[in-house]
């Protein structure tokens, strides 16, 4: 047990801090920008471990350095690099399973933000049981011809390209009949319809395919290997959705609010019921933060943390959602305001997050699917036997 950093890492932290001082003025307010992404890649604070040949910075993977960068950027309130499904999911997949040509063609423009990707996985009838997906692609000459529908496609409107799972081998077992295709969103036959969510925003879309023609070369891996290819990315998404630092940032914002906001002439922090709930949440945030350190330690040593890793999506998403829910509770009537209303606190962030986070609990493998994974892979319990048909 040693939480100190060696001089090498202390020096690295200083380097990051200096960068932040020097470049703070050029950082965009709010969301990351392409110009900011360029600066970050040049200095190794985005696309850090992606080889230079593919437009990254080319550093050796170093979990601790990545963590230091994230910590310092969060502390300074600076946006990190661009984050979208292309960068966080498609690029790692391509690095692992793409052909050399595909890596050369797609990774650099994706990292720069010149190409934005969306993910075509879920379908109306294939959610938790993703491998049952029915969107089909039939070979006709040099093309696949795609027909079907995807849903929950974030950024489909803005996206230039889609990485998509389609059924190419209808007679194979369900996990072995899927292929992983890449195509432009401008391809004729694609129709995107926004899907308005409970937050009021259209953060997802439905995407319809009618005789969409995609060259057979636009495939990652072989025909029928798509499930295997996709799982390389799902693993990535599940890790991403349970970030304990985000919970810490939220907790601090709530503490600040409880010290400042008054109700009935009394500070929220002086209400013993609210205070008890706050400390309860603080315990959970701390537990998840130290749990995060424990996972980082395993990662540094190249060990599989097993059960400890499997719980992160479930526990992290629940905690973030509970933090937002608590913030709304302590706001009382103010907690129902929305859409820029007068008296709205924190620009409606808590209301939005309380709803949006429910989406995160459901997306990327529902809480119930996570519990199946924990019990089966973490505790060695058997899979549910095949169901009786209704």
């Amino acid at each position, binding site marked *: 047990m040693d939480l100190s950093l060696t001089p090498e890492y202390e020096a690295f932290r200083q380097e990051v801090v200096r960068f932040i001082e020097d470049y703070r003025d050029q950082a965009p307010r709010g969301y990351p920008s392409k110009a900011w992404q360029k600066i970050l890649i040049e200095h190794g604070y985005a696309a850090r471990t992606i080889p230079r040949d593919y437009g990254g910075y080319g550093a050796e993977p170093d979990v601790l350095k990545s963590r230091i960068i994230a910590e310092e950027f969060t502390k300074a309130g600076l946006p990190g690099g661009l984050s979208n499904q292309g960068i966080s999911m498609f690029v790692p997949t391509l690095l692992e399973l793409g052909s050399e040509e595909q890596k050369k063609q797609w990774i650099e423009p994706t990292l720069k933000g010149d190409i934005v990707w969306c993910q075509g996985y879920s379908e109306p009838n294939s959610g938790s049981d993703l491998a049952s997906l029915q969107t089909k692609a039939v070979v006709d000459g040099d093309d696949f011809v795609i027909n079907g529908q995807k849903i929950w496609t974030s950024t489909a409107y803005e996206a230039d390209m889609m990485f998509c799972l389609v059924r190419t081998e209808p007679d194979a077992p369900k996990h072995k009949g899927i292929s992983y295709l890449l195509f432009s969103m401008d391809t004729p036959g694609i129709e995107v319809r926004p899907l308005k969510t409970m937050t009021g925003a259209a953060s997802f879309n439905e995407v319809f395919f009618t005789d969409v023609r995609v060259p057979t070369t636009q495939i990652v891996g072989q025909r029928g290997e798509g499930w295997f290819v996709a799982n390389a990315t799902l693993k990535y998404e599940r890790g991403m959705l349970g970030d304990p630092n985000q919970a810490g940032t939220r907790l601090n914002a709530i503490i600040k609010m409880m010290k400042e906001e008054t109700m009935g002439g009394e500070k929220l922090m002086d209400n013993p019921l609210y205070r008890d709930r706050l400390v309860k949440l603080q315990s959970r945030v701390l537990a998840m933060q130290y749990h995060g350190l424990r996972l980082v*330690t395993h990662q540094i040593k190249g060990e599989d943390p097993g059960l400890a890793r499997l719980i992160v999506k479930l526990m992290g998403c629940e905690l973030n959602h509970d933090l937002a829910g608590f913030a709304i509770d302590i706001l009382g009537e103010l907690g129902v305001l929305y859409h820029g209303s007068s008296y709205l606190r924190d620009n409606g962030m808590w209301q939005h997050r309380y709803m949006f986070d429910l989406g995160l609990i459901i997306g990327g493998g529902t809480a119930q699917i996570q*519990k199946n994974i924990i019990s089966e892979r973490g505790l060695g319990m058997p*899979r549910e036997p095949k169901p009786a048909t209704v």
Partner: protein
Amino acid sequence: MEFGLSEEQRLLQASVSGFLEKASELDVVRKIAEGDQSARDVLQEGIDSLGLAGVMIPEDFGGLGMTLLDAALVEEMLGRYVTPQGFLSNQMAVAGLLASGTQEQKETWLPKIAEGSVQFGIGIAEQTGAREGAGLDEKDGKLTGRALFVTEADKASQFIVADRSGRLHLVIGDAGGLSRKKLSTIDVTRSVGELVFDSVAAEALLTENVAGAAAQKMLAVGRVLQAADTLGAAQRMIEKAVAYSLERKQFNRVIGSFQAVKHMCAEMAAELEPCRSLMWFAAHAYDAEPDQVALMAAHAKSHVAEVGKFVARTATEVHGGIGFTDVLGLHFWFKRIGLNRQMFGSPETARQDAARLQGWV
């Protein structure tokens, strides 16, 4: 940076576990609970032979010079095997003596704890909320009053108790004017009682100005060890629940293949894993970041108590009717976790402490 157990710590835990698996199996625990003194002596001798009593005592005083985390790893195993043992009380005494004892007091008592020849009982319940009629007053080196929920009250050879001002005092177990009474509790694996003082000779552990601080430090050590004890007990309950669910069949299936049961087990495991990390850090703070130990101990105590309660009831439910009976002895773990939750301040009390330590009250 390394946030995890060292190889030595893993070995330490494995060796304690390996020993207790046999020495503290359920039949032994039952015998001791029923008052079988020879069974208790055999277990005690075995534990003494491991030489762990002095785990936190500096080598200068005959101990192993290890950390609170090492002690917590031992306590976790004692919780795992619901072992009737006064290890926790002795470690609190060590913390109290190190924090506030004179050189002479340390030289007198620390080596004795290390060699396993004394058992301390701890009376600081009045520091986290005194019941009516409880509290000790000191006058001219004599204590008068009542201390409730004193650990090892019936067995201890020595006590460390706090008076109303938070000053610590060392009292010999057979001192004149001291009467001891064991209180029957839900948890027969630990001993809790009442001490009544009628002008009992006591030796103050320190000067008055730092009195409260030493008691608080002892309390923090107690809370961390208690969290470790609950962690070990809860972990075992999850293992028992999973194992039972893979044996028990209903509707021609092992019940562990039903999602309702799988999800109960997954929830227990998901809640308990982060507790481990929280407890590790709280223990680590005692040696490495002393400014944080009181706060982190309060967090570890309250959070692990909450999760422990959830695991205790859920694991019992997974066992169905048999879990409710005495047959499997599951209730020993249930009650161990229950006692840990109430002692040294309830979760609410510990959270109030945490709020106070951050200047929120």
